[in-house]
């Protein structure tokens, strides 16, 4: 490792330790690293969006390709800046309305297709076979129906409906538990990665 790399990795190691110090309690080192990353992250993403989206979708079309109709969304975008003024902030409702209108219209079809039809299709279109895979498919069908019944509040959960609803919440809890376990393992993997980084840095620093 060169001296330059050692210095840069030293900064990364220092910031890593600053964040880990929060495990003891909130302290100035943690606050420093937190505020530093807030500034750096905002700057980083702003510049990335400027050099990609802003250049590609505003500068190039209007000033190079002569697609002047892109001035309309640019003006709508500038109207968003009236949010800074109490007197004129109502003007920002027009671009927000446009944004929300487009977003809502697209959401209806996109969400119904991907979150409703595709999920139903995946649940009922898998063929039932007389083996372990087939049994899993059957369990999934029953479990999805039961979980849906748990969320169905237009009818009282009594009798067979109550049994299905109870089974539904059990399925949901097992599902959440499995998802939770997977998330914890993902975070632990990140933790291990950071500890390995610190170990490698110490080894490089002291020439182990």
């Amino acid at each position, binding site marked *: 490792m060169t001296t330059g790399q050692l210095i840069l990795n030293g900064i990364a190691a220092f*910031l890593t330790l600053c964040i880990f110090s929060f495990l003891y309690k909130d302290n100035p080192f943690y606050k420093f690293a937190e505020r530093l990353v807030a500034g750096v992250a905002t*700057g980083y993403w702003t510049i990335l969006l400027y050099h990609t989206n802003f250049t590609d*979708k505003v500068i190039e079309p209007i000033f190079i390709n002569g697609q002047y109709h892109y001035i309309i969304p640019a003006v709508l975008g500038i109207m968003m800046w009236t949010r800074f003024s109490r007197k004129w902030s109502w003007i920002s409702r027009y671009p927000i*309305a446009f944004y929300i209108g487009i977003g809502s*219209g697209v959401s209806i079809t996109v969400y119904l297709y991907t979150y409703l039809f595709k*999920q139903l299709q995946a649940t009922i279109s898998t063929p039932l076979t007389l083996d372990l895979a087939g049994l899993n498919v059957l369990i999934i069908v029953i*479990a999805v129906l039961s979980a849906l019944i748990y969320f169905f509040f237009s009818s009282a959960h009594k009798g067979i409906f109550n049994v299905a609803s109870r089974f539904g919440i059990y399925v949901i809890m097992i599902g*959440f538990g499995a998802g939770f*376990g997977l998330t914890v393992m993902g*975070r632990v993997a990140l933790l291990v990665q950071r500890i390995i980084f610190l170990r490698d840095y110490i080894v490089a620093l002291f020439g182990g």
Partner: protein
Amino acid sequence: MKRELPLMIVLIFGTFMAFQYFVPHRISSDLYQEFNNWTIIIGIFAMVVGIGSLISLHYNRIKFKKPGWGYSTVTIVCLIGMMSIGLIGGTENDLFLKLYRHGLAPVTSTMFSLLAFFIASAAYRAFRARTILATLLLLAAVVVMLGRVPIGEILTGWLPRPLQFSEISNFLLYVPNTAAKRAIFIGVGLGVAAMSLKIILGIERTWLGGEGRK
């Protein structure tokens, strides 16, 4: 003008975008693409509002010497510094990339790794509830965690394959987890569609903010 026109804009564009999906014509898909581009452009300009708010918040803290104003200086200096380097040198600039690799990346991944501790502490508190549901949650989580690490293999490696943690873990992830996710996704799909419809028809007006709701 301040209230009705925005509601009209939402109704017109919302209805158009919902129906264009069913029109298999090039003009329809071109307009869809065009309006999507427009929303991206508006979003880029809206980002200025976010950055402006951030700067204004921290500037006021520094100006009035509020508690922790020194940290606000760090944020503003880092923000302006990063933006200046990126604007002058571009995104491929060596210093810009180094600040990302040695400043932003390690801190964000460490913050995420910290969540391992907080998740464990939250889980402990949740599992103390001692109900059947909490027990199921705990068991599923423990089995999935053990099924992903070598210790799980050591503990149950001698058992028949279907009873080993790795196999049970796979079953939990592919069957109950999939079923729970699907049921929730179906609910989310219906919920988003219903909410979008309410917005388009002007029933849901909270987005207008303050006086717009009257």
